[in-house]
C-alpha cells in the first residue's frame, strides 16, 4: 500500500508537470483574440472622429526603472517616455537626417559659425503657453550645461534670443554636428517653458511640460507613468519618418508599466495585457508560431572594447594593438547575442545606414583574429604577466557580462593574465570614472548620429588623450561639404584604428514582437515613437 501510494504520488506530480509544459507552447491562438488589453480607464467608445474601431488605452512595458523624467538628465533611461512628451528643434528621420520639428527653418552664416533658428508660430506647451524664443533659449542653455556631449560640441557658446521667434547660436568655430546634437534622442535637447526650467534644482525639473503629442499625467515611481493625449498638439505637415514628421495621437491614454522582470513582461504579453514586448532567444519559439503576432528585428547597440588609456599597460599603444589583433569579433558577438541572426560585422564606428558618417577606412585592422600576431606584439611590448582587470556588470540583461567573458577567454588564450571585476551598475559607473580601477571595459553603446558624439573618443570615457585624435575630431566637425566630411571622416576613422581608443567589435540586433492589432509603431535606435500608433479593438 505504501509503495503504491508513493509511486502514485510521483506519477501525479510528473503528470502535473507535463500538463503545464504541454499546454504552454504554441497554444496562444485561442486566447489572443479574447479580451481587450485596456482595463480601467475611460469610456467604451472612442471619442475620435476616426470611424475605425480603435482602443483608447495602450499599456507599454518598460524594462528599466526610470530614475527621473527630466529630459535633460539620466539620458537613455527615460527616453522611451520623454520622447513622447517633449520635442526639440529638430528630429531624426529614419535615415538619421535632422528634420525641423519645433524649428520652422534655419540659416547658417557663410563662415559656418552662426546658426539662426526660426521657430514655428503658435506651438502650444501642455500648460497652454505658446512656445517662444525665451523658452527655447532657457531650455537649450540648460541642456548644454547638463550634457557632456553638448558641452563638447558647443564649448562656451550660448543660445541667444534675437526676437520672439528667432534664436541664434554663435559658435567659436564651425561645427557640422549641431543639428544632429539637437535631433538625437540620445541627447534629448527638449524644449520646456522658461518658468519650468528656471524653477528646476540640481535634481531636475518639477513639472514635465513639453510640446509633444502626449502630456504628462501621473508618475507612480517604480510602477508606471501615465500620459494622455494632448488635444492642442500642433503637428508638422511633413510625412512621418523615424521620429520626425507628422504626429497624430490616436490613443487617449498611454501607460508605461515598469516591469523589470523579463519573464513577467513576456507572460503579460502572452496573456494580452501588452501588445508589444522585447523577445529573447528563450522566448522566441513561443511567439514564432502565433498567427496574430509579427516579429521585428531592430538594430540595437554596437559593442566596443574600451581601453583605460591611463592604465599602466594600455597607455602603451602596443598593448592596445595586441588586444585588437587577438579579438575574434564573430566569437564575441555570437557569445553576446547567441544567434548569428542577431549580429553583424561592421568595422566602422557608425552604422552603414547612416550614409553621411559611415566609413570603411581602417577596416584591415578590424576582426583580425590573429593570436600569433598578438603574442608577438605582447612580447615586443615587454609583457611580463601583469594582470589585466576587465570591468563589467551582470545587470542590463547580462549582455555586457557575456561579451566580457568571451574577450577574457581570448586574452587568456594568448597568455594574458586577467581578472574580472563584476559589480552592479551603480558601482560600475563609479569605477569607470576612476583611472586606477580598470583596464578594459567591454560595453554595448547606443549609436549616436555623428562620430563627434562617440563617448569613447572623448577624454571622459576611457581617458583618451591624444593631440592628433582631438585635431582630427575637430577637423571632422568643421567640415562643411559632403566631400570634406567624407575625407575628414575617413581620416578620423583610419587614425582611430591606429590609435585604438577603443576596438569596434560589431553591431547587434534585438527582437521584439508586436500584435498585429497594434499598428503605426516606429522605432529609431530602439526607441519607440508612440505618436501615430493605432490599436484596434
Amino acid at each position, binding site marked *: 500500500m505504501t509503495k503504491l501510494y508513493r509511486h502514485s504520488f510521483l506519477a501525479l506530480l510528473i503528470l502535473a508537470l507535463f500538463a503545464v509544459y504541454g499546454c504552454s507552447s504554441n497554444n*496562444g491562438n485561442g486566447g489572443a483574440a479574447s479580451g481587450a488589453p485596456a482595463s480601467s480607464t475611460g469610456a467604451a467608445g472612442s471619442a475620435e472622429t476616426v470611424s475605425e474601431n480603435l482602443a483608447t488605452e495602450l499599456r507599454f512595458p518598460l524594462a528599466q526603472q526610470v530614475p527621473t523624467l527630466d529630459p535633460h538628465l539620466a*539620458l537613455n533611461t527615460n527616453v522611451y517616455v520623454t520622447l513622447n512628451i517633449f520635442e526639440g528643434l529638430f528630429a531624426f528621420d529614419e535615415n538619421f537626417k535632422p528634420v525641423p520639428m519645433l524649428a520652422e527653418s534655419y540659416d547658417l552664416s557663410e563662415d559656418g559659425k552662426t546658426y539662426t533658428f526660426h521657430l514655428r508660430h503658435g506651438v502650444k506647451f501642455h500648460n497652454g503657453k505658446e512656445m517662444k524664443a525665451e523658452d527655447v533659449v532657457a531650455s537649450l542653455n540648460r541642456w548644454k550645461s*547638463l550634457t557632456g556631449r553638448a558641452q563638447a560640441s558647443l564649448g562656451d557658446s550660448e543660445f541667444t534670443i534675437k526676437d520672439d521667434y528667432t534664436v541664434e547660436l554663435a559658435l567659436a568655430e564651425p561645427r557640422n554636428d549641431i543639428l544632429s546634437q539637437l535631433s538625437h534622442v540620445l541627447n534629448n535637447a527638449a524644449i520646456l517653458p522658461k518658468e519650468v526650467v528656471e524653477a528646476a534644482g540640481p535634481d531636475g525639473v518639477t513639472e514635465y511640460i513639453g510640446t509633444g503629442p502626449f502630456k504628462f499625467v501621473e508618475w507612480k515611481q517604480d510602477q508606471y507613468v501615465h500620459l494622455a493625449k494632448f488635444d492642442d498638439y500642433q503637428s508638422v505637415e511633413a510625412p512621418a519618418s523615424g521620429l520626425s514628421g507628422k504626429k497624430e495621437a490616436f490613443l487617449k491614454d498611454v501607460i508605461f508599466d515598469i516591469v523589470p522582470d523579463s519573464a513577467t513582461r513576456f507572460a503579460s504579453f502572452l496573456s494580452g495585457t501588452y501588445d508589444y514586448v522585447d523577445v529573447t532567444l528563450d522566448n522566441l519559439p513561443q511567439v514564432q508560431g502565433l498567427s496574430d503576432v509579427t516579429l521585428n528585428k531592430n538594430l540595437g547597440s554596437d559593442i566596443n572594447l574600451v581601453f583605460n588609456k591611463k592604465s599602466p599597460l594600455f597607455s602603451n599603444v602596443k598593448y592596445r594593438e595586441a588586444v585588437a589583433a587577438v579579438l575574434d569579433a564573430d566569437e564575441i558577438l555570437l557569445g553576446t547575442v547567441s544567434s548569428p541572426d542577431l549580429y553583424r560585422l561592421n568595422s566602422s564606428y557608425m552604422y552603414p545606414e547612416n550614409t553621411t558618417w559611415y566609413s570603411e577606412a581602417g577596416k584591415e585592422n578590424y576582426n583580425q583574429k590573429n593570436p600569433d600576431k598578438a603574442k608577438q606584439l605582447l612580447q615586443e611590448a615587454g609583457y611580463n604577466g601583469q594582470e589585466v582587470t576587465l570591468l563589467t556588470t551582470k545587470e542590463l540583461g547580462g549582455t555586457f557580462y557575456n561579451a566580457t567573458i568571451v574577450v577574457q577567454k581570448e586574452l587568456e588564450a594568448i597568455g594574458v593574465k586577467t581578472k574580472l571585476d563584476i559589480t552592479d551598475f551603480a558601482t560600475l559607473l563609479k569605477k569607470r570614472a576612476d583611472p586606477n580601477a580598470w583596464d578594459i571595459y567591454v560595453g554595448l553603446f547606443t549609436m549616436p548620429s555623428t562620430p563627434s558624439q562617440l563617448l569613447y573618443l572623448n577624454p571622459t570615457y576611457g581617458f583618451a588623450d591624444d593631440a592628433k585624435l582631438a585635431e582630427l575630431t575637430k577637423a571632422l566637425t568643421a567640415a562643411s561639404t559632403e566631400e570634406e566630411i567624407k575625407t575628414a571622416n575617413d581620416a578620423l576613422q583610419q587614425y582611430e584604428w591606429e590609435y585604438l581608443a577603443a576596438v569596434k567589435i560589431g553591431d547587434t540586433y534585438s527582437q521584439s514582437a508586436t500584435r498585429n492589432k497594434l499598428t503605426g509603431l516606429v522605432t529609431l535606435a530602439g526607441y519607440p515613437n508612440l505618436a501615430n500608433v493605432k490599436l484596434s479593438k
Partner: protein
Amino acid sequence: MAFYIARRLLATIPVLFVLSVIVFLIIYLIPGDPAAVMLGDGASPETIEALREQMGLNLPLLTQYGTWIGHALQGDLGDSYFMRQSVRTALAEHLGPTLSLAVLAEIIAVVIALPLGIRAASRRGEAADKALTGFSLFGITVPGFVLSMFTVLLFSVQLKWLPVSGYKPISDGLWTHLQYLILPAISLGVVQAALLARVVRSSMLDVLNESYVKTALAKGVGERGLVYRHVLRNAWLPILTVIGGSFGTLIAGAAVIESIFNIPGMGQLLVNSVQRRDYSVIQGVVLFVAFAYVLVNLVVDLLYAIVDPRIRLK
C-alpha cells in the same frame, strides 16, 4: 497588560539604534553613489558633484549620521532622492501592498496547513500523513518563484483568469485588489504552509502523547471534541510562534515575489533603493522591518497569554 506592552516597546529602542548605526555604516561603505545613478551615463563630473553637494553626500559620515538620527528622533526619516517624497510617505505607500500580500499569504498558509496538520496528526501514518510529508517536501524544496512561474503560466497565460502582474489598491474595489494578489499569495503561502503543516503535526502529536489525552479518551470524549477542545488548544503555542515568525518574514517583503509580480511593496522598495543607493529609504525600510518583527513577536507573546491562562506576562 498595558504596562507590559509599553515596556516591551521601549525595550526595542536600543535595538533600533544599534541597527541604524550598522546599516548606516554598511550602505555608506558600499561603492557607487546616488547622484551618478540619477544623472546617468553621459553626465559630466561637474553636474554629478553639484548634485552630491546638494544631497549633502560630501559631509563627514558622523555629521550625516548625526543629522539623520536627530531628525529620526523627531519622526522625520528624511526624503527619498529618487521618489520625490519623504521616506515616511514612501514607507506608508509601500506598506499597504505588502501587508495585504502578507495577510493573504498567511491566510492561505493557515488554511492549508492547519487542517492538513491536524488530520495528519490524528490519523498518523495514514494517507493524510503521507500527503503532508509529500506536500512539506514539495513546499520546502520548490522555490517560491518557480511555483509562481507555474501558476502564472496556468492561471494567467492559459486560462486568463487572473492578471500576470501588477497591483491595484483596495480603494479600487475588493475583488480588483485581491485578483492581483492571489497568485503571489499562493506562491508565498504554499511555501509557508509546508513549514507550518509540519509544526502543526508535530505539536499535535506531542500533545496526543500526554496522559490527559488518554484520560479524556477513557472518559469517552469523542474524536472531534478531543482534537479541537483538548489537543489543539494545548498545541497552539509552537504553532503561534511559527505563524508569527512567518508573518514577520512576509512583512519584511518577499522581494523576489514582489519583483516578479510587480507589486510595489516593501521588498521591491528595498531592492530598488539599494540598486539606486537611495540611502535614506534603505535606512527607513530596514528600521521599519526590524520594528515590524518586534511588533509581531510582541503580538505573539500577548496571544500566548490569551491562549494559555497559565502564562503570566512579566
